[in-house]
């Protein structure tokens, strides 16, 4: 459990880095690393498929997309980030962490839940017997994404 906690802490740290780092490329890499750590966490939670997906798709595919975009948009002025926010927000974040910890401590065991029996079978069975509609949704969402990208990068005839 300690390792898991440590991994999670690293995950949070990397995420904060991904946001806080000035250089976009580094941010993207930090994000990829965070995804990697999250994937490992998933593995350790007993969810290998999720872990694989997290690592391959998020840490891989999305990072590639990010880097591609960064490369495509790199010329021109840098965006100047707010200095005030750079000082204030870390403080707020730390404060939130403290509050978060306190709340979780007090909340512990308080969220009511029904005890239900666990599930049986393999991931495939659960997916096919239980969540097939999600697969339809996935297909639809992928279609949507593809068409969206196609639409956004289409050659405009002429727009008045």
């Amino acid at each position, binding site marked *: 459990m300690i390792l898991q906690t440590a991994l999670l802490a690293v995950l949070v740290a990397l995420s904060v880095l991904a946001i806080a780092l000035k250089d976009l490329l580094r941010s993207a890499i930090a994000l990829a690393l965070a995804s990697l750590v999250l994937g490992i966490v998933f593995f350790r939670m007993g969810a290998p498929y999720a872990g694989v997906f997290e690592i391959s798709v998020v840490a891989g595919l999305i990072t590639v997309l990010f880097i591609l975009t960064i490369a495509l948009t790199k010329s021109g002025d840098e965006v100047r980030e707010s200095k005030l926010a750079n000082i204030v927000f870390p403080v707020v974040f730390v404060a939130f962490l403290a509050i978060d910890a306190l709340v979780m401590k007090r909340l512990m065991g*308080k*969220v*009511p*839940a*029904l*005890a*239900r029996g666990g599930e049986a079978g393999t991931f495939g069975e659960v*997916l*096919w*017997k*239980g*969540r*097939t*509609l*999600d697969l*339809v*949704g*996935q*297909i*639809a*969402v992928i*279609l*949507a*994404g593809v*068409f*969206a*990208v*196609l*639409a*956004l990068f*289409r*050659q*405009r*005839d*002429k*727009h*008045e």
Partner: protein
Amino acid sequence: MIILFVVLPLVVAGLLPLAGKASKRLLPDLLANATLLFLVAYAAVAGRALIADGPVLQQTTWLGEALGIRLVLDGFSLFMLVVVALVGLAASLFSIDYMEHYGAKGNFYALYLVMIAGMNGLVLASDLFAVYVFLEVAAVASYALVAYGLGRDELEAAFKYLMLSVVASAFLVGGIAVVYGMTGGLDFAAVAMALKELNAGPALAVASALFLLGFGLKAALIPFHAWLPDAHPSAPAPISAVLSGLLIKVSGVYALTRVFLNVFGLTPALSTVLLWLGAVSAVAAAFLALGQKDIKRMLAYSSISQVGYVVLAIGVGTPLGIAGGLFHLFNHALAKGLLFLTSGSVQRATGTRDLDAMGGLAKRMPVTAATNLVGALSIAGVPPLNGFWSKLIIIVALVQAGHPVFAAVAVLASVLTLWYYLLMQRKAFFGRLNETWAAVREAPFWMTASTVLLALLCVGIGILFASTVTTWVRPAADVLADGIHAVAGSWGF
């Protein structure tokens, strides 16, 4: 085979790029409109027969084995399917002429059909996560459609829309996770029964708030509305019509009411919150609409206001209130779709959306002006149009449920609505012809045809309101009025 509602548009969407290769215009037009026509026919004609003996629960089987696709068609979802199909058809008819200049029609219709499929899926889904999934399907398609013009404003609007709604959906998933954690299930029926057993308390309050953020942002309730007045005007007119007419209702109002009324059960606390959200939205957005110079932005704020009206009515929780709310949802979908379509006609003819630059267009575009007038009066609740009846039922319900102050607010919102619509009429259509537009021509056939279709529906439903209410609205309202019993008792697979 109610899965057709989801699969058919998806399949056609998948085929469209290929069809677009073969024929740039005709085939996409034909395919898309035929699909929607089929959906209209299927929902309106066959749907009634399907649910004659109570809700239809359908689990798809494939190769003799039951799949995890469980769809439910009851009065409420059928009602929504009809609305989606009707307005969807009108908008796609409108697109035949309107989308000529945007290019890549195949691509456009593909996105459009995916969005329709997403909405249909959402309406038919019977578990919380599937609702989220289809909500995202429709949303992703809508982001691209909002930005379809690729102009600066379109992109800005689409980006903000995306960024806000992604956050909201993330919270929605968080909410789903909390509910899942408490109940151990995602099925409406399971969750409803579990929540009945469980005294959830504050945890459910947090979950409710998360759901409210998630669906409320889609429904553009104040204070989650800020994306809408940017996104809806920026989209091409038929998309604006579908976004305002359908998307905010399906992924916002439908999801919200389905979850809160049928799954969580409408507690007094939730009812009060919904009343307040609705009232604030209805009035504040009406004021905002009053200050607009952009015709479509005005319409967009009007959508917020009217959705507020719907939520206000549903928040009452009485059968009459729900019926009024749903009827208003229906009427608003038709009328707002109509208004956005006519605004598209105007924009296409004049090239501007600035009300101050228009003037007296009724002279050059009589049909557009007349249909626009019908839509405006309908939404403002002027009899004998359909909007009047729904507003009347809502106010009656509010008074009967002992909320005279909210009823007064509804009345006030109604007056404000008429105020800004009169402003729109005055600046755009009524009044002397602005000489700049002396050569403007009436919109082409399919555009006028689709607006006339919607206008006739508005008038017809206004006159035949009684049969509309009994045939379509009452079954839907009955489902909602049953509360969790509608789901918990009968939706077991």
